[in-house]
Every structure is written in structure tokens, then in C-alpha cells.
């Protein structure tokens, strides 16, 4: 079953077409990567999925809901990012964007936002329900913190954590909303080979343990080839190839796109 389906997605900034007629399908429970040279439109596509941008053309459907559709469709819809999160999509950022002056636990608690039910008036009178909810949330947050391997660091300010731990915390914060689909934007950027290996294992673990569908943007080809079940290649906002890791490695257009530019020569 498809959890995410994008048809003909187009996003323009002035004269620049960042995403151009992009089609994309994501079956539930898979790990799929989007690769492509810098500026190919990968992060822009993420921003279209999460509702940060309204798209100019095409339709994005998630879990049976139209979440973003362009002016060319019968009635354009643009759901806000918070609404889309409530439907079950969570994300991380290329350049880690934690709430840096809040503690690790507080970051995760904010991530749990969509599961809180009590009204703010209950917070003033401290109703029993609200206290129970807070206690339960805290318990879950600690479980998550342990799950990503940050035992005992809950009271640390996010900005004080080491780089690798910040990446993990950001993933924990995204997981806190219990998403069906997790978007990871370059989760191994800036990591050393050791940390990268660990992160790769961790991502696989996420899917296998929690059954979350994962969509990945990544530059490290080793990671991509290792864990993706399918890969889409983007260049100039368009899809130039799609297939299993071994197919992509042999695809001449992909090699041209990368080597022709002299970027990311590992491919």
C-alpha cells in the first residue's frame, strides 16, 4: 500500500523551478532515498511534503488525504505544517534545528505535542487528567531518550550535547509524534565514519522495530546503497532515475549527473 504519493509536483521561486513535474511513490514500511547533486531540489521537495511551501502544480497525497495540491488541480489545498504533522509525518533538518535553549527532555515533550489532549485551562487548575497526561508524557519521553541512546542526558540543554547526540535527539523529537512517515534530511551529514555506521544501523533499527516508513535525503552513497530499498535520483528538480541500489549504480544518466559535475565523486 502506498503511504505517500506525489504526482507532477512543481514548485517555483520566481523564475527558478526548484521542483519540476516530480512523481514519487512511497510504499508503506520501506526505506527509500532521494539522492541528487546540491541544489537538485531535494530539500524543497521535503518542504512541500511537510507543508512549509504551497506547491504550484501537482498533488501530494498522504495516507489517503490530499495534503498539498497546486493551482492546476480542481481545488487547490494547502495544509499547514502542523496539520500535516497531526496526520502522521515527522521530519528532521539538514542543519540540526533543535530548540537549543530547551533541555533534551523538553525538546522531546514538544515533539509529543500532537498526543496531548488536555485544555490549557486544565493546566491552570492542575486537573488530575492533566497531571496524569504530563506524567505519562514524561515517561514516554524518557523511554524515547533511552531508545536513541541518550540515557541520563535529559536535563542537558540541547545546545550542550555533542553533535552526534544532537542528531539523535532530533530524531527522537520527530519520533515523539509517533509518525507513520519519517523524513530524514541528511542524517549523517558531518559525522565521522564510525558515527555514520552507527546512524545507518539506527535507521534500519527504526524501521524494523517501530515499523515506520522512512524517506531519506543523503549524500553519503555508502549509507544510501546500504539501507535503501529503492532510490530516486533528482537533478534540476526532475526525476532522472529510479530503481534499486544496484540499478542506480549502473544508470548512465546518474553517473553523468554526478561525475559530469565533478561533485560527490564516490558514485
Amino acid at each position, binding site marked *: 500500500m502506498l503511504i505517500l504519493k506525489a504526482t507532477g509536483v512543481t514548485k517555483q521561486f520566481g523564475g527558478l523551478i526548484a521542483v519540476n513535474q516530480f512523481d514519487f511513490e512511497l510504499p508503506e514500511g520501506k526505506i527509500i532515498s532521494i539522492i541528487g547533486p546540491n541544489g537538485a531540489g531535494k530539500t524543497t521537495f521535503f518542504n512541500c511534503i*511537510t507543508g*512549509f511551501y504551497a506547491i504550484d502544480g501537482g498533488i501530494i497525497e498522504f495516507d489517503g488525504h490530499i495534503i498539498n495540491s497546486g493551482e492546476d488541480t480542481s481545488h487547490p489545498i494547502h495544509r*499547514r*505544517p*502542523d496539520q500535516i*504533522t*497531526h496526520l502522521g509525518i515527522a*521530519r528532521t*533538518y539538514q542543519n540540526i*534545528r533543535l*530548540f*537549543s*535553549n*530547551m533541555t533534551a527532555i*523538553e525538546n522531546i*515533550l*514538544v*515533539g509529543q*505535542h*500532537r498526543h*496531548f489532549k*488536555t485544555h*490549557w485551562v486544565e*493546566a*491552570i487548575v*492542575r486537573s488530575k487528567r*492533566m497531571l496524569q497526561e*504530563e506524567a505519562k508524557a514524561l515517561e514516554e519521553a524518557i523511554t524515547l531518550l533511552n531508545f536513541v541512546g541518550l540515557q541520563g542526558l535529559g536535563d542537558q*540543554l540541547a*545546545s*550542550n550535547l555533542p553533535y552526534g547526540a544532537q542528531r539523535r535527539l532530533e530524531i527522537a*523529537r520527530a519520533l515523539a*509524534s509517533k509518525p507513520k512517515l519519517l523524513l530524514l534530511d541528511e542524517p549523517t551529514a558531518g559525522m565521522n565514519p564510525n558515527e555514520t555506521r552507527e546512524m545507518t544501523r539506527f535507521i534500519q533499527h527504526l524501521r524494523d522495530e517501530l515499523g515506520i516508513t522512512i524517506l531519506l535525503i543523503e549524500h553519503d552513497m555508502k549509507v544510501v546503497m546500504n539501507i535503501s530499498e529503492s532510490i530516486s535520483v533528482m537533478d534540476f528538480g526532475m526525476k532522472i532515475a529510479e530503481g534499486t541500489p544496484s540499478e542506480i549504480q549502473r544508470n548512465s544518466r546518474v553517473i553523468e549527473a554526478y561525475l559530469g559535475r565533478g561533485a560527490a565523486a564516490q558514485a
Partner: protein
Amino acid sequence: MTPTNTPTLKDAVRYGLLSGLIEINLSAIGFILLLHQRELVAGAFTMGHLFLFTAPIGFAYLLAKKTAAHSRSRVLGYGAIIGALTALPLIILVFLATAFDIRQFLLNISPDLITLLTFGQSVVTGSLILLAINVVLGMLSAALYLLPPQWRKMAVSGLAWVAISGTFSEILLGRLRSFFGRGLTDLIFTGKSLNPGFAVFILVAGALYSYFSQRRHARKEAEGDRSDATVLSLPIETINKIILGVVLLLLPVLLGSYLTEVTNNVGLYVLMGLGLNIVVGFAGLLDLGYVAFFAIGAYVMGILTSEGALGLGMGFTFWTALPFSVLAATLAGILLGMPVLRMRGDYLAIVTLGFGEIIRILALSDMLKPFIGGAQGVLQIPKPSFFGIDLIQPGQLYYIILACVLLAWFISARLRDSRLGRQWMAMREDEDVAEAMGINLVSTKLLAFATGAAFSGLAGAIFASKLTSIFPHSFNLLVSINVLSLIIVGGIGSLPGVVVGSLILVGLPELLREFAEHRLLMYGALLIFMMLARPEGFWPSEVTKRELHAFEEQHQPGTSSD
């Protein structure tokens, strides 16, 4: 501040000139002369003197601190240079003012100022005295740094006690007289100020107090920290709370009616400050039009209850009108909040400022005059009554204000510690990410605006009925700036900070009328100073403390500077 290079003569000259520049400006704007009216020690020393010599003393001390690590011998010399260079521009000013009529340009360079600067002597003698005093003070201040820390603390403590008790001598006098009678006060005071003998007594007492408290500290440290001591099996914290509660309840009796009136004004600003603290401190939305909600609360109260021509005459009392005031302000908070929801921080500030002005101009305009009175305002608003007793005395109104402040504090604290508080904090940190976490920015921001507006409306309603008449000019931009300043000075996001800020920025100028004249100048300087030197405020919130602590840890690993 790691002193890597030794201060040179050039630094001393620079500090001296800066100090002179500050003093000559303080003199030229009339600050020194105005403060000269308040005597700290009868016949000897005024607050004008205090400020006249603050800059050289401060700069000499600062430079001594930087120099002492390298060369103790230069410290005194530099102090003297700073003193001399501070005096120099002032002496030039004295000569110029005697030779020409500067006053036609700078109206505060008056003969009185010249008398003050020359200590009532002739121009030449006076100038020499001024020079000598500055040089001596510069050297003394530098020498202070060379003293052993224990002695230094004692000296500073003694002087501070004299300055503080001198500053508040008038109030002290009033209170002491009403409790202990003339006998005691005649011993201590001459006129309205401390007499010199008693000033010396305070100086010595302050120094001794510092000496003993240092010894006690040292002993405690030697014995190990035993702060978990309990009395009557109650933890210290609870006892402190009980004492605070009792003092708050008895405050009007302790303070007398004038000081209670001042306290009431401070209380209204605390109430507004608590509201703006939610908007600016918790949610990070800089609102410069906050006075609008205060005005709306006041006008609704005024029109509903007024017994004058503009009153509705529907039999509203203070208590029945109060919910409507708060409700109207809250609605206004939401309505004015909606258009600005998508604006970035600095634009938001200017637009809210515009809203505040729009409300004020409308209140003044002929268009709404038939309803809210234009410049003539709304008159004959009754004071609140409580079970048939009219609350006319400030001591009675005090309890209404206290109750409202406590309520606002309680709500603020509960919201801060709840999920909503975390949402606000997340939004303040990074709006885009907060939204991506599923937080609805619209409702979260509107809740902040609405709560802030409600507190302000409440303050406005009490204000209207406290003054019994309201005019548009009471609701100008300065009120917004005032409230913003006090939460920044107290510590942004901090609840006790709001009270500290209100006491400093609202209470002090009312007690020291001389300050009131230059209050906005000082607000301005204070805002700049706080942002440069102490952005966390005088009573920082836990969060801000944590942030700054983290900042220090990151930037100076393992080192401790002074």
C-alpha cells in the same frame, strides 16, 4: 575579560576623558543640579555630589582592576590621572560659564550649577578644590582595589549603607516618626536628611555588618554546608513563604498611606508586566502597543460605571463591570493579534506600536467624543465597594490589587510550567520548527496575546476606578515602553523579575521625585546598558539563567574569571 595586555598611560587618559565627558553631560542636562536637592548627609553630601563623582570613582576602580595584576605601583598614578582628567572639562566649563552667557544656549548651565561645581568658593579656588577632590577620589578608589578583599568589602558595604539610607532618609524619617515618635528621629536626622554623626555611625555599622557576615560565611564553609536546617520541622522555604505572606498582608499598615499609594501604582505595573511578560517573555512576541489593552480595560470600566454624562447608567458596579473590562481587552487582544500573526519579530514591534497609537488617537478624536469624551475623558467613575464599604483608602484598594497580582502570577506560573508554556518557548526558539512539531501557531500566539491583554485590561479597570477619571493622555506610548523596560530590567520571562523591575522603574521614581524628571532618559540608558552588560536582567528566570550558564560553559571551558 582576560587582561592580556597591560593598561598604559593612554588607557588612563582615555578613561579619564570618558569620565569627564560623562560628568560634563550629566551637568549640562541638569541631572547633577537636580539631584543636588536631595541631601544624603545633612550639610555635607548630596546625591548630586554622588553622581558628580560616580564616573571618576568607577573608572579609576575599573582601570585599577585591570592594572593591579601587572603593576601595583601604577595603580594610584592612573587613578590620579583619571581624577584630574574628569575635573578638567568641568573646570573649563566653570571658566566659560563665568566669562560668557552659556545659559542662553544650554539652560541648565546655571549659576547654581557653577556654585555647586566650585563649592561656593571663587572660580579659581573652587576649581582647584574640584580638581583636588577628583584626584583624591580617583586615587582612593584605585587604592580600594589594592586593599585586601575583606577590607574592600567592608568599605564598600559601609558606604553603600550610608548612600541607601541617605537616599531614603525622608521616607525613613516619616516611618520611624510614626512608630517611635520625635525623640528618636531628632537624634538621627537634621531636617529631612541624616545628620553627619549618625552617617558615620551607619558607615561603621555597615562595615562591621560586612565583617561579621564574612566571618559567618567563612565559618559555615569550614563546617560544611548545612543549609537543610529546619525550624519547627518546617522547611525554610515554607517559613519564608509564610513570612512573605504576612508581610504582604500587613504592608499598608507598615507603609502608611503615601507609600501604600506608591505600592498600588507599582502593583498595577506588576499586573501589566506579568501580562506583557507572557507575550514578550514566554512567547517572544515584542509588543509595543500593549497600552491599548490597558486603555480598553479602563474605558470599558469608565463607561459602564461612570455616574457622569457618559456613563451608561445601567447600574453597573465595579465588580459587575470588571468581567466586561477584562473580556473587552481580551477580545481586543485577539482582534489586534490576528493581523500580525504572520509578521516577523521586528515588524511586529512597529505594527503593534501603530495599533497602540491608533487606539489613543481614536480616543482623542472628535469622532468618538460623544461616546468616550475625547480629550475631556470620562469622569465620575465610582471607587469600588466591598459589601457596602466604599474602598476609598489606598490601603483598601491595595488588597484588590494584591489579589489580582497574585491571581495573574498564579496563572502565569501554571501556564509557564504546562504544555502551553513549552509551546510558547518552542515558538520563541524557532517558529518554523515549532509548527513542524504540530503546534498551531495561530492559536498559540493568540492565546499569548489574549492572556497578556486580559491582565492589562484588568489593570486598566482598576486604574480607572482608582483614579475615578480617565483621559486619553494617560494611555500613551510611554506606558508601553515603561512596561517593556521593567520586564527587561527585571529579567525577561521571570515572574519575580517583573516585581523587581516595577519596584526599580516605577517605585523609585515616585519615591525620588528628582529622578522622575529624568526618568525616560534613565530608562533609555538602562535599556542599552542591560542589553550590553546584563541581558538576563536583575532577577533572571530559570530558563535564562540556564541559557547563560550554558553559554559560559561553552565559551570558557574550565576557567573561572574573577
